[in-house]
């Protein structure tokens, strides 16, 4: 019996190691290749560069005619604004759903859950037409403003679930002390909601930073391009030449999200495991 258990452990380990290599190898190769001279990128499977060079980063950084500094700054602006808007608006809505008793609450809650199932394509064209009328095309407004109004119901749901776990006695104690709903929300709920707010912050940042279709549709000037659009412009232009620069800029656009992941991975993995995230 102990030997069998030992053996199965060994087999599980072997399987996991194979999967691990398959998962990591592409990413290690990408990073390694970005530091290789152009002519050595496809000549070997060895992910480590024999000759180490920054040339790809130097040439890639301005290869589209606009600096990646601009693209990254735009991405950071959009992502940070979206995070702030999303955290603020979703927590307010979540408080209403989780704690306040008002007419048609169940109905609106069902509607909110329903919007989570809605494919974004269903609203892509009409939203564009509306933002076009407002003269918002080629600005960051169409990307950020919806999040000021709790557009992504998923995060409302996440916070509702969390608030339901906070003992109601705390609100009621504060209410007995004369606190109104606004005070209860700010001084009781928000501080205790911190773990959910952090999960929301991390996921919103990563998803917004990596989002492509919406940014592709709304932004048309290189000066407004975000990192994914800049990289895509590079791919369009490069096709055939300058693989090194393209791979180097791929790494550059991944760095902010990977950094956020590394800092927060423990909390994030726990959060996903317990709430079940897309």
């Amino acid at each position: 019996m102990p030997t069998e258990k030992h053996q199965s452990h060994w087999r599980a380990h072997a399987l996991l190691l194979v999967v691990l290599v398959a998962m990591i190898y592409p990413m290690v190769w990408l990073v390694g290749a970005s530091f290789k001279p152009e002519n050595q990128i496809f000549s070997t499977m060895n992910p480590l560069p024999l000759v180490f060079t920054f040339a790809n980063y130097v040439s890639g950084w301005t290869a589209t005619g606009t600096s990646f500094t601009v693209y990254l700054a735009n991405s950071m602006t959009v992502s940070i604004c979206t995070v702030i808007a999303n955290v603020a608006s979703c927590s307010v809505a979540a408080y209403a759903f989780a704690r306040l008793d008002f007419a048609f609450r169940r109905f609106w809650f069902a509607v909110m859950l329903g919007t989570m199932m809605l494919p974004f394509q269903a609203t892509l064209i009409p939203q564009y037409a509306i933002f076009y009328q407002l003269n918002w095309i080629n600005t960051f407004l169409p990307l950020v403003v919806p999040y000021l109004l709790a557009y992504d119901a998923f995060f409302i749901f996440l916070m509702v679930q969390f608030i339901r776990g906070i003992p109601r006695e705390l609100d009621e104690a504060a209410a007995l002390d004369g606190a109104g709903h606004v005070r209860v929300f700010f001084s009781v709920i928000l501080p205790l909601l911190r773990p959910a707010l952090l999960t929301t912050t991390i996921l919103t940042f990563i998803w917004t930073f990596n989002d492509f279709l919406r940014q592709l549709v709304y932004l048309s000037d290189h000066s407004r391009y975000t990192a994914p659009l800049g990289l895509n412009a590079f791919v369009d232009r490069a096709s055939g030449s300058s693989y090194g620069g393209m791979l180097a800029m791929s790494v550059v656009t991944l760095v902010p999200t990977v950094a956020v992941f590394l800092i927060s991975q423990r909390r994030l993995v726990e959060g996903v495991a317990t709430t079940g995230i897309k």
Partner: protein
Amino acid sequence: MSENSGTAVLDPPVTEPQAAPVRRKRKRHKHNLAGYGFLAPWLIGLFAFTLIPMVYSLYLSLTKFNLLTAPQWIGVENYTRLFSDERYLQSIKVTLLYVVTSVPLKLAAALLVAVALNRGLKALGFYRATFYLPSLLGASVAVSVMWRQIFSRDGLVNQFLGLFGIQGADWIGDPRYAMWTLVLLSGWQFGTPMLIFLAGLKQLPQDLYEAAAIDGAGRFTVFFKITLPLLSPMVFFNLVLETINAFQTFTPAYVISNGLGGPIDSTLLYTLYLYLKGFGSMQMGYASAMAWVLFAVIGLFTAVYFWSARRWVNYAD
């Protein structure tokens, strides 16, 4: 910590039973005001960015609309045209193929790895985080660029096959294979469902396993007769979620095919074609009709899942 202090305040002396309803009524009124106050941002957003656009989209789908001139009413013509549009039918074929292959692949990988991880490994945290990372980054342009290079004619995959003397194909450039690189990319991102399976596995009652061990059941019997049925709610949840996601896949198809869905429309996923129609050739009425059909198809899939769930999803309580 604070639970105790809270209950002391809460437990109200049960006096004046008649006073309660009156107080509740007044309180309810107050909550209405506060409730809708707190709900207002979401409600405004719901109408502005979801409900009104959806009604507008339904109207646009019955018109000819290029954004610059006013929509022109043409009735159901967009919908009837869809079914004589060769490229549209091709995009449906490609998308269905993508959904029915990538979703099972992803879920099978997720389940397999989750079961392997669920043995009290010391490095569990490391494995979990590493396997999760690709699903977090998978939708990015950078990962698609990487994938394109790995499967290019002289990329990593063909170099690896070369070690065994196999001459690999031009995976991205060959219409027979391009689609499968997208399916594999989706399979590579099994991290999210894996985490959900892992959380489910941790909660399975151990006594069933002990009973099975006493009965001398083999590992496969245990997996298929005990683990899988107990895990079926998680399978269901992941199946619904991943199917909806798969129908909406855009970025990898766009990047790998240079935004065209090629070679010869073999990677023309639904959303990519919708984008090309709506924003490439500005046929926004037509694209709106496409969006509504997609909405209906996803709704149909979800309905079938929920309907079939009664037969195979095991709700213990």
